[in-house]
């Protein structure tokens, strides 16, 4: 499927990570505000027949929560959200996230919007998938300037899980909390391991130390693409009109 859009490849890739059989089952997945690609990935999993409860924070009409914005955090505190997505203005090689800003605290260089719920969600959700489309040395840094949410915790600090993976516009990394390092799982079509290395500010592992053994990220199947452009887009049109217009070339009825 060479004619799929980058967002479609990313959605299908994240969908596979959501459904990864080696991970605890994702029964209830929450998706944050500015996350149309993860939302598409989760809708795709639903449309493929997996019974996932999907709570989209960004939904205006039909929002899943009735107890205010704290309900997501209360659910997560209890362990009732299985999977959440996080990104970052900076992400480092130990999977620390910076959503605050560059330079001295609180972002004297470039101020990002802020941490949102990351300092809580990262530690209290059993599974986290990191997603940041821009894959460049300014985003993927050796060490973040400020830690909004830490990738690992010392023994004894309550924590339900860690990053499962980091998906970017160039590749998929797996995260290994035991050694606090990423390894390269696959590179997207048109990318090379050397190219990924050059665009990444942190050091990462390549399985077996063999660059040529890193596979290409599988393209979406015909079925997945048809679902993304059809049933998934139908679900997303109300909440993400710009995304649906840009990626699926579909406009909301007036």
């Amino acid at each position, binding site marked *: 499927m060479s004619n799929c859009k980058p967002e479609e490849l990313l959605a299908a890739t994240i969908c596979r990570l959501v459904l990864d059989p080696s991970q605890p089952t994702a029964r209830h997945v929450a998706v944050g505000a500015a996350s149309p690609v993860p939302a598409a990935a989760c809708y795709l999993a639903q449309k493929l027949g997996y019974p996932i409860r999907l709570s989209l924070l960004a939904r205006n009409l039909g929002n899943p929560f009735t107890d205010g914005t704290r309900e997501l955090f209360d659910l997560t*505190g209890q362990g009732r959200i299985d999977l959440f997505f996080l990104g970052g203005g900076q992400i480092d090689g130990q999977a620390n996230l910076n959503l605050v800003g560059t330079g001295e605290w609180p972002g004297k260089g470039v101020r990002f919007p802020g941490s949102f*719920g990351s300092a809580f969600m990262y530690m209290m959700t059993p599974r986290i998938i990191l997603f940041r489309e821009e894959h460049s040395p300014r985003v993927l840094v050796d060490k973040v300037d400020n830690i909004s949410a830490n990738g690992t915790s010392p023994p004894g600090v309550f924590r339900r899980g860690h990053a499962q993976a980091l998906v970017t516009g160039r590749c998929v990394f797996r995260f290994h909390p035991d050694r606090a390092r990423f390894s390269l799982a696959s590179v997207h079509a048109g990318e090379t391991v050397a190219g990924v290395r050059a665009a990444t500010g942190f050091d990462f592992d390549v399985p077996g130390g063999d660059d040529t053994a890193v596979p290409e990220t599988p393209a979406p199947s015909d079925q997945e693409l048809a679902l993304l452009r059809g049933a998934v887009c139908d679900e997303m049109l109300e909440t993400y009109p710009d995304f649906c217009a840009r990626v699926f070339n579909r406009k909301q009825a007036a």
Partner: protein
Amino acid sequence: MNLTDLESLAARVPDGSRLAMPPDNSLPSVALAKALVRRGARGLRLVGVPTSGFATDLLVGAGCVAEVETSAVSLGEAGFAPRFSAALRAGEIVMKDATCPAIHTMLQASEKGVPFMPLRGIIGSDILAHRPDWKVIDNPFAAGGDPIVLLPALQPDFGIFHAVMADSKGNVWLGRKRECATIAHASRASLVTVERVVEGDFLTDEKLAPGCISATYIDAIAIAERGARPVALLDEYRMDTAYISDYARMAKTAEGFSEWLAIHVFETRAAAVA
């Protein structure tokens, strides 16, 4: 009930007050924020519940704000909040970064009238390192070795938000946007703008009552039609994205922001015909 007009509502807020406001996915009173700019409020301490948006950027840009305590400030799809970012860079405001559930928890402590509440997570984040008012203790109910964060109760002077309607008794209805209820319960008083006032008592209507905030918590109400604009109001009106993009573009510079204020807040100048 205490029904007043918008400018009088703003006049009830003394300089230096701590104001709790909901973000742009809830029901901020942008109308009251504009009235505070017109009244020339100074030294306000804003609390974003749990994040901040358009109204905060507006108040910061107009020089009304001394401190912002929140988990993020953003104009959503229109990008970073330009006047907030500029004020932070210039050192004109004190920023107290938090994380969403911490804001909720500090307000919930106030709701219950207890001095603090614990919250999981956060340990290892630089947010905690920059919050000397947040403490870590060892969970006294565990056998030991279970550190947990304690957050102090946060009691704003005023809760400020918009609601769909008020009734004859001064109750307001805003549906499921319950962070506004948390704001109202935790604050010393709330000042609320509404689209309209209707006869009756919402609390006697079993369908309306769960989406109400009782008059107990509310000091005064003013009618402000389209008072959340450019933010959406439930299913009554949508987010005005063109208005926000226009603001984001003009507010990139102090001059552009002043011009925007003249057109949209002081209304001393007409908008250029597009």
